[in-house]
């Protein structure tokens, strides 16, 4: 079973979102998603400063098995990226909700339309078949 922390919000496309104390949001991929992808080998990060709309593909996480887009769960501007992933993409496998974070966004508006941990659990269960 994958780990789905209850203090985070989730997107149907398997991103998680954490609201930070400065109002920015941190984004990564869920434990369920990293397990399904397997060992990550490359991560393409967005440029800092880039404006993104909710649902924009803004990073690529690539494993031995497959490449997968990471979509912005909310609209905003990229304010930080996790440079460590360029050298150590496996951080996403090892610590998907911590050292494996992908980017931080300054959101333009509210973070509506995201899933609670309980609702995301259902999405994860369905994709496990």
């Amino acid at each position, binding site marked *: 079973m994958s780990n789905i922390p209850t203090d985070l919000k989730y997107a149907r496309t398997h991103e998680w979102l954490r609201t930070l104390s400065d109002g920015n949001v941190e984004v990564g991929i869920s434990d369920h998603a990293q397990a399904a992808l*397997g*060992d990550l*080998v*490359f991560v*393409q990060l967005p440029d800092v400063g880039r404006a993104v709309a909710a649902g924009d593909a803004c990073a*690529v996480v*690539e494993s*031995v*098995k497959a*490449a997968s887009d990471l979509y912005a769960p909310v609209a905003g501007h990229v304010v930080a990226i996790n440079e460590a992933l360029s050298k150590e993409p*496996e951080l996403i*496998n090892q610590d998907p909700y911590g050292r494996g974070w992908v980017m931080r966004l300054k959101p333009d508006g509210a973070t509506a339309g995201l899933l609670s941990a309980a609702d995301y659990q259902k999405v994860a269960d369905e994709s496990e078949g």
Partner: protein
Amino acid sequence: MVDFGGWDMPVAYGSQIEEHQAVRRSAGVFDVSHMCIVDVTGARARDLLSRLLANDIGRLTTLGKALYTCMLNDSGGVIDDLIVYRMEGGDYRLVVNAGTRDKDMAWIGAHAASLDVSLLERRDLAMLAIQGPQARERTASLLSYDGSRTVLALETFFAARLGEWFVARTGYTGEDGFEVMLPASEAGSFWQRLNGAGVRCCGLGARDTLRLEAGMNLYGNDMDEQTHPLESGLGWTVAFEPSARDFIGRAALEAIRIRGSDNKLVGLVLEERTVLRSHQKVKVPGVGDGEVTSGTFSPTLGRSIGLARVPSATQATVEVEVRGRFLPARVVRPPFVRHGKVLVQ
């Protein structure tokens, strides 16, 4: 778990890359019981295989010797690739792919009938591949004194029978090791004893990255019935000598050899930080187009490698279409890695 030719098989037991590294650096074990083992018996078994196999069964002059070969159709297309072992009394053992089992059995059976040769599929046997620089010693440490001496004395591409077990110094990883065929009822306990001896469990994922680094073809990806050995990097497995041996596919391959093959299979190394995948388009400027037949991330090189079928005139570089962009790739001669050492620039 994934479905693989009707078998439920794990892609990885844990980290696929760690499993890969275990085989390159120490030892790992793969459950390859899905492979189909067929014993070929009868006075004319050799005649049958001389006709069916593109490599020369006549090379198996000693007991236990193994030979890698393709089995071709009349137009030179590859029905399957397989290993054949010389057994006692003029008998042979074949190990063919799981995904091609049904058509292989039908093809071989159709040619065997008129020669009064019997085929026996050994579903009673399991097969474990123990691979890596420590694989032979760790495996031998679990055998009897005599058994251990016998298997450690095996040369590369030779096998020996130990009672109901059959131990071959063969593999699909580019490392030293054994492939052990044993009664299925004994496979579980042997697997656990291997784990106890420090041999790591490895899944299909690591098997694929290891074979690709070793420059070994995968049937269905790198060759099939629509492609022939001479455009699949397998010309070395076709025995045109002796010239009197009339194997199926010979006439077609000789015609191709005279006019020259249109295509060839090459190795690719990608500089960009992404991964080659099968079926990606290859552009060779001024020459033509090709296709990636197998691609992956190479844990040993730390970048992506692949095999591609390209026009024969292809030189040192090509472009591969990866997710909408054309990226430069260098053309190299496989293998990429053997015995833990990187062999390409």
